[in-house]
């Protein structure tokens, strides 16, 4: 834990929704090329913290952030931050598989066009193929790229959402309860995919499901009422928690 390379470092992070103090004095370091899980009871601020890393909280009116978040040493909590570059570098996958009401092809093309990443039919197709291969969808879908993405299974849709992020070559992928709409088998397979992706990406996953955190993550943070109560390697947090609150939560005494 001491020698890990840090990708994201949050210092004295406070967030207010109007008068409501949603994140309080967060000190948090996300290790590079590993899976970090955020757990904690509903409403404790997991999503809020996650959405700080790509500044999605900017969309919420009268949301105010103080403190510092550095990604690769670069300050994120700053009016001068280039949000477009930031969000390309730090991709996000949401709870509900929210594919665009467009073809599979166009779902992936969207980001490529926005960032003017590739041009030319052949190179676009090659990139899309690469993206779909990354999430294990190419073989299933290669013959029906023009089919509407809404016709896919939920698991396929969520994979497509991951591909839509991966294709932009991000460095960090944020996932907010990505499996809560999926059945157990699909959940397992997505977890498998995340384990493959962590070779190339830094992954932060919010989950309600403690077994999932234990199965998939290398590091775990436990949040409670807007504070990060405990952070450590997953095995340490689950087998030998330092804080009573963490212990009670993990043993299922509240949730």
């Amino acid at each position, binding site marked *: 834990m001491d020698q890990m390379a840090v990708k994201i470092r949050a210092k004295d992070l406070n967030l207010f929704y109007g008068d409501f103090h949603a994140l309080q004095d967060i000190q948090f370091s996300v290790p590079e090329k590993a899976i970090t899980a955020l757990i904690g009871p509903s409403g404790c601020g997991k999503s809020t913290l996650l959405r700080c890393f790509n500044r999605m909280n900017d969309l919420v009116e009268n949301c105010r952030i103080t403190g510092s978040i550095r990604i690769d040493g670069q300050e994120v909590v700053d009016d001068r931050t280039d949000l477009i570059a930031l969000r390309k570098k730090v991709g996000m996958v*949401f709870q509900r598989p929210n594919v665009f009401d467009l073809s599979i092809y166009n779902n992936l093309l969207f980001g490529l066009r926005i960032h003017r990443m590739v041009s030319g039919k052949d190179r676009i197709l090659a990139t899309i193929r690469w993206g779909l291969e990354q999430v294990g969808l190419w073989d299933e879908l290669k013959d029906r790229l023009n089919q509407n993405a809404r016709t896919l299974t939920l698991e396929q849709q969520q994979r497509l959402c991951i591909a839509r992020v991966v294709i932009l070559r991000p460095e960090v992928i944020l996932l907010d309860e990505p499996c809560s709409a999926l059945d157990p088998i699909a959940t397992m397979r997505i977890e498998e995919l995340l384990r493959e992706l962590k070779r190339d990406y830094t992954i932060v996953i919010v989950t309600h499901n403690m077994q999932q955190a234990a199965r998939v993550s290398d590091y775990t943070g436990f949040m409670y009422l807007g504070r990060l109560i405990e952070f450590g390697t997953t095995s340490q947090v689950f087998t030998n928690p330092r804080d009573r609150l963490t212990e009670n939560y993990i043993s299922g005494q509240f949730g």
Partner: protein
Amino acid sequence: MSGARVRQNIAFGLMGLVTMLVVLPIILTLWYVVANGIGAISLDFILQPPRNGMREGGIFPAIVGTFILIVGTMILSLPIGVLSAIYLVEYAKDNLFTRLIKLAVVNLSGIPSIVYGLFGLTVFVVLLRLGTSILAGCMTLAIMSLPVIITATKEALESVPASYREISLSLGATKWQTVRHCVLPYAIPGILTGTVLSLSRAAGETAPILFTVAAFYLPRLPRSLFDQVMALPYHLYVISTQVPNMPLSLSFATAFVLISLVFLMNLVSIILRAHYRRKRQW
């Protein structure tokens, strides 16, 4: 039959009856217009200017005039209306000023058309010295159409789920790219409906064009934007009230043409809507 079932049947029967009460007058009016006017419809009626104090000949200049007014009104009001709605929904901060504007827009759509006519006369015809002209008429009709177009566009934009914007922004799209590719395509059907509704009204109104553009009798076609034109609703008013010994069938035929024009516009919007639904891309 149980009591609940009986009550349900009575409720359904009543609702059906009320619906009939709404639809029946429309059908009767349409039928009356068609039955009385169809006999006078001919190619000459549509393609010839009026003759003999408008008691004979056709209504070609009025058809062209109304067509020009509709197109001109659309050119002026559609971009302004859609852009202001986009600004109000997507960009403007939710403060007192924005709320006042939104309230004003809603209330403007309830103002009687004669008020717009007087406004056009004062501002466009007299103050801006455009005279009674196509330009003044189109501007007046555009001002009248704007509130409806803005309201329809606003509602269409607001009905696009927030999550669409969220995904797009989270992928690094700019606000404008998000609006352009993830919001507008889904709002277009609603915008089209509102536009056609307001243009239909513009096509049929007499009061706004009365002092700003409409000509009593002008058989030649306009030569510039500063010309007057004849227009169907005003022509209908004129031949129904101002011309003695007018054959009634010509009035009905004129009304029939006006209704057909509005119907045609609705048809085009239906086709466009279907087209947009199919052709949505990235």
